[in-house]
C-alpha cells in the first residue's frame, strides 16, 4: 500500500478540517467509504501523503427535508443508509433502487453518495438518477459554501469541479412534480457486482400518455455522465407511443459518445443506449398506468427486466 509515511487525520468538525487544510493542500486524499480510494492506493494508482477521514464530521451526514420539500442528503451518507432511510424511500425511491444495484452489501455499508459522485467514474450509478432529478450539490470550504448543479460537477473521467480545499457536503434533490416517474436502469454483464456497461435514468411527468416533462441521463457512454437534451426536447409535449419512444431512443444513441474498453465495445454500448432508454420510457409509462401513487418500495425504480431470478 502507500508507504508507512502515509498520515491519517480524522477531524471531528468542519472547522477542524479547515485548520488541517490551512497550510498544505498537496497530495491529500479525502477518505469517505474508501471503497474506490483505498483500492487505487493499493494499486499505486494514487500518490497520497495525507489521508483525511471525513466520516468523523457529523455535519457531512444526515438526511432531511427542507420547507421547500428539497431532500438534503449528507455526502457521507452510506449507500446502505441511502437505501433504507424512510425519507429517501418516500421522496426519492429511485435512489433506493439505484443504491441496491451497486456493488455488494459489504461495499454499500461503507461506500457513500459523495464518494460515488466525487470519484466521478463515467459509470457512477448515482449520477444518472440525480441528473434527471436536477440535483444540486452543496460544496463547502474554509471560505464558505456554494451550490452547484450536479451536471456542472463532472468535468471529465474521474474529474470534478471542486477546488483544492473544497469538500462536497450535501446532495440536494428538488421535489418532483406530481405524476412524475423515475426509472434507473443498469446493464452489466452479470446480475450483480458489475460496473455498468451502460446505465440510464429516465424521468417522465405524464398526464395519461402525454409527456409533460422529460429528463434522460446516461452513464458510461461519455467522458462524464450526461443529460440528453435532444431526446428530452423531443418527448416533451408528445404522446408516448412506439414511434416516439424509438425516436427518443435514437436521439439518445446519437448523443452518446462511448468508447471501447475492457467491459464493452463502443458499438454495443450505442445499441444499449437505445435499448435502455426505450425500456426506461416504457417502464415509466407502465408504472404511471398500473400503480398510481404512492409506489410500493420494491417495484419502484427496479427494472422489471432486471429483477433477480425467482428460483
Amino acid at each position, binding site marked *: 500500500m502507500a508507504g508507512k509515511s502515509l498520515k491519517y487525520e480524522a477531524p471531528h468538525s468542519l472547522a477542524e478540517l479547515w485548520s488541517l487544510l490551512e497550510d498544505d493542500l498537496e497530495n491529500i486524499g479525502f477518505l469517505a467509504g474508501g471503497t474506490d480510494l483505498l483500492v487505487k492506493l493499493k494499486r499505486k494508482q494514487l500518490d497520497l501523503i495525507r489521508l483525511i477521514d471525513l466520516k468523523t464530521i457529523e455535519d457531512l451526514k444526515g438526511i432531511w427535508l427542507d420547507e421547500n420539500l428539497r431532500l438534503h442528503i449528507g455526502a457521507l451518507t452510506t449507500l446502505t443508509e441511502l437505501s433504507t432511510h424512510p425519507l429517501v424511500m418516500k421522496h426519492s425511491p429511485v435512489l433506493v433502487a439505484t443504491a441496491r444495484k451497486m456493488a455488494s452489501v459489504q461495499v454499500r455499508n461503507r461506500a457513500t453518495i459523495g464518494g460515488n459522485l466525487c470519484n466521478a467514474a463515467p459509470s457512477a450509478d448515482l449520477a444518472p438518477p440525480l441528473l434527471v432529478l436536477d440535483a444540486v450539490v452543496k460544496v463547502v470550504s474554509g471560505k464558505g459554501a456554494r451550490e452547484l448543479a450536479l451536471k456542472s460537477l463532472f468535468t471529465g473521467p474521474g474529474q470534478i469541479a471542486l477546488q483544492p480545499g473544497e469538500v462536497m457536503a450535501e446532495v440536494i434533490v428538488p421535489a418532483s412534480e406530481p405524476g412524475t416517474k423515475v426509472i434507473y436502469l443498469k446493464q452489466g*454483464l452479470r446480475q450483480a*457486482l458489475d*460496473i455498468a456497461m451502460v446505465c440510464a435514468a429516465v424521468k417522465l411527468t405524464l398526464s395519461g400518455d402525454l409527456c409533460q416533462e422529460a429528463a434522460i441521463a446516461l452513464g458510461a457512454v461519455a467522458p462524464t455522465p450526461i443529460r440528453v437534451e435532444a431526446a428530452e426536447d423531443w418527448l416533451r409535449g408528445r404522446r408516448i407511443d412506439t414511434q416516439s419512444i424509438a425516436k427518443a431512443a435514437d436521439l439518445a444513441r446519437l448523443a452518446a459518445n462511448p468508447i471501447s474498453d475492457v467491459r*464493452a465495445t463502443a458499438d454495443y454500448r450505442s445499441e444499449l443506449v437505445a435499448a435502455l432508454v426505450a425500456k426506461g420510457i416504457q417502464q415509466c409509462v407502465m408504472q404511471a398506468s398500473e400503480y398510481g401513487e404512492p409506489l410500493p418500495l420494491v417495484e419502484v425504480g427496479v427494472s422489471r*427486466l432486471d429483477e433477480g431470478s425467482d428460483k
Partner: protein
Amino acid sequence: MVTTLTRTIIGKSATKYDAFAKVTGEAQYIQDLTQPRMLWGKILRSSLPHARILNIDTSRAEKLLGVKAVLTAKDLSGRPIGFGNDNEILKGTKVRCVGDEIAAVAAVDEATALEAISLIKVEYEPLPGVFDPILALSDSSVLVHEGKGTNLSMDYHFETNIAALDAAMEQAAVILKDRFTLPFVTSASMGTHGCMAMFRNGELTMWTPTQVPFLYQHELMMALGIPGKRIRVIQPAIGGGFGAKLDMYPYEASCAHLSMVTGQPVKIVFTREEEFQASRPRQPMLIDLVTAADGEGHLLARTAKVICDNGAYNSWGATTPFVGMQTISSLYRVPNIRYDAQIVYTNNPYSSAMRGYGNPQHTFAVESHMDMLATKLGMDPLTVRLINANQSGDITPQNMKITSCAFSETLSEAGKNLGSLPSEAGKLRGKGLAGMIHVGGGARVYRSDGCGAVVKIDDMGRVVLLTGATDIGQGSDTVLSQIVAEVLGVDLKDVRVINNDSDLTYWDVGSHASRTTFVAGNAAKLAAEEVRTQIVNAAAEILKVGPDQLILKDNRVVVTNDPELFIELTKLIRAMHFRQDGKLLVGMAFYDPPTEMQDNKFMGNVSAAYSFGAHGVEVEVDTGTGVVKVLQVDAAHDVGKAINPLGIQGQIEGGCVMGLGYALSEEMKVREGRVINANFLDYRLLTCVDAPEIRGKIVESDEQQGPFGAKGVGEACCIPTAAAVANAIYAATGVRIKELPITPAKVLQGLNDLRKTTDNSEIEN
C-alpha cells in the same frame, strides 16, 4: 471381491470430512501457515512479454534493511525445468511472457520484500512478441524459443483408415464445417497459490497446495538437483485447484532456494493480480471441425484441426489434445476420425489443464455440430443424439472400451422440452442440450495411474486411512472415509483420513482426470478389505464359524445367520493384539487400474471406465440488449454409483456454474501478453444472483470396476454446459454463436444480422 449385502454408508449423503474446520475458520491454508523465523519471499516478474535481459541490478535491494537474500539466475544452476524442459527457475537472458520470474527476494516481512522487489532494476531489450498462434506458426521471424527453430512445440495426429474416411465424406448427406473459437479463462480459485519452503540439515520440506504431491516431489528433485529422498511435501488445506495447481511452478523452486541460502523457512503467496497473470489458465483453442452424417442423422465421420495457444512454455496444457482427441473420436459413435492438433508457442501466459483438460473446448465444437446437424436434417436434437449415443460394450476408434454407460438415459433426462419456448414480449426463450464423455476410471497419461492406501485400526476402534489422494475441495476425503467405514462396519466418524504428507501417505499420481473416487477409492477399499479379512479370520476362530458367515456391521463382527452371535470389533482387535505372537491390524493396497498407455498412434484403453452426462440449459434472451439469462439447468450425470449424493450434488452445481461462466461471462483478456482484467471486477465469476437453479440428476450405471460401482464426476459436470448454452440460444433466437464467451454484444449482432437477412429476403420476395 467382497460385497456387503446392505449398504449402510455408501449411497447415503455424508457431510464433508473437514467441514467443521472450515466453518470455524480453523482450517489452515498456505496463506495461514507460519514457521518460527519464517521469512517472506516475493518474485520480481517481467512486465514485458518478450525481451532480452541485458542487466539485472540487485544492489539496492540487497542493501535494504531486512532483506536476507536476493537471487537471480546467476545464483542457480540453470538446469531447465518444467513439463517440456523449456523453462527456467529464474530467467537470466530472456523473458518470454509477462510474469516471467527474474528475481526472488526473502525478507523479514512482506512489506520489505515488496520494497526490495521494487528496488531491483532490470535493463531489457524489448523484442517483438507473437501473440497469435496462427501468426506464430506461419511467421518464424519471431521465435519464442530460438533454439527450437520453430514456434511449433508439439504435434498430435490421430486417424482411422483414411480411405474409409474419404469414402464416408463422399457418401455423406450432410457435411458441416465450422470454426470454433475458445478463449483464455482461468481457474480463479478463491485460495491463491503459495508455498512455504524449509531447507534444514539437508532436508527440504515444502508446504504447497499442490494437486499432485508425488509428481511435485519429483519435479522439485529435478529442478533443485537434490535427491528426491531428501524432500517431503506437505499439503495444507487447498483453496481450490481446478487444474491450476498441477504444476510445480518456477517460483516454488525459487522459494526452496531462498530457504537454502538463508537457512530459514520462506513463504511466498500470490496476490490476486499475480494469480491472474502468473498462474496457469485454460488453453485457448481454434477448432476447425468437420462433421459428416447420413440422411438419417448417423454420424459417419469427424475431422478436427486444432490450434492451441500454448503460451511461452510447455506445461500440462501442452497435453490437452490427448484428451481433446478422445472427445473427437469417442463422443458419440463415429467410425471415421481424423485429428490434428498443434501446440504453438506464443508470448502469452502458458496454460495448464483446467478442469476438463481440453474436453470443454472440444465438446463445445462437437456438441454445437450435433445441434446444427439436427437443424440441417429437420431432426429433434435429442433424437439425433440418442441414435448416435455410446452404449455399454462399445469400443471407440481409439480402442477405448465403454463398460458401464448410461449416456442415453442422461441425454433423455436432461433433454426434455428442447427447442423454442413461450416467452414474453421482448424476450426469446429456448432450451438446448449437450452431452459429454470423459474418463471416469483413472487416466493412464503417466506410467503409473495408481494410488496407494493403508488402513489401520487400533484396539480402541480408531480407524485411519492413509491415502496418497489429494482433496482439493471436491470431497474425496469424505468418499474415501465412507468406503472404509462401509467395508469395516464402523461409524463414519470413526474413520480419520490422512492425505497430505508425503512421509505418511502413499504414492498417487494426483487429483486430476476425475480419478480420485475411482482409483483412490479402489485402493482404500482394497486396503480396508485386507484388514477385514484379518478381522474375519480371527473372529471365525473365536466364534467357531466359517469366515464367509461373518459380516462387519455396527462396530461388530456378526454371524449372518445368527445375529445374536457376535463379537465387538474392539474386543476382537484387543484379543488379536495383546497376546503372545500378537498382531497389529494394517492393510495395504496399491491400485493401478487395468488400463493401457496409448501407443504412438494414440490407441489404447486409457481409462477403466468412462463417465457420461448431459446438460439441458434453458435461457431467456433479451432481444433489445442481447443479454442472456440462464433460467435453469438440468444436469444428468452417470456416476456409476453415488457414494455421497450430497457431495455429487455440490460438484454438479459447482461444475455447471463454472461451465456457465465459460459460456457467458468469463474471459481472461490478454493484450500483448498482459492480462488486462486481472481482478474480480472485470474477470467475471458468476455470483449467487447469477447462478440459476441447477437440477442435478444422478444416474447410476453400476461400474463393475469402480469401488461400489462408482466412477468420477469432478470434471464431467463442467464439460457440456457451454455447448448446451449455445444450443439453447440457437433454439431461442436462431442465432448460432461459435465462439466463447457468448457476450450480449455477440448475441445482439447475431439478432441484427438475422433481422437484416429476414428483411432482405422479404424485400426480395
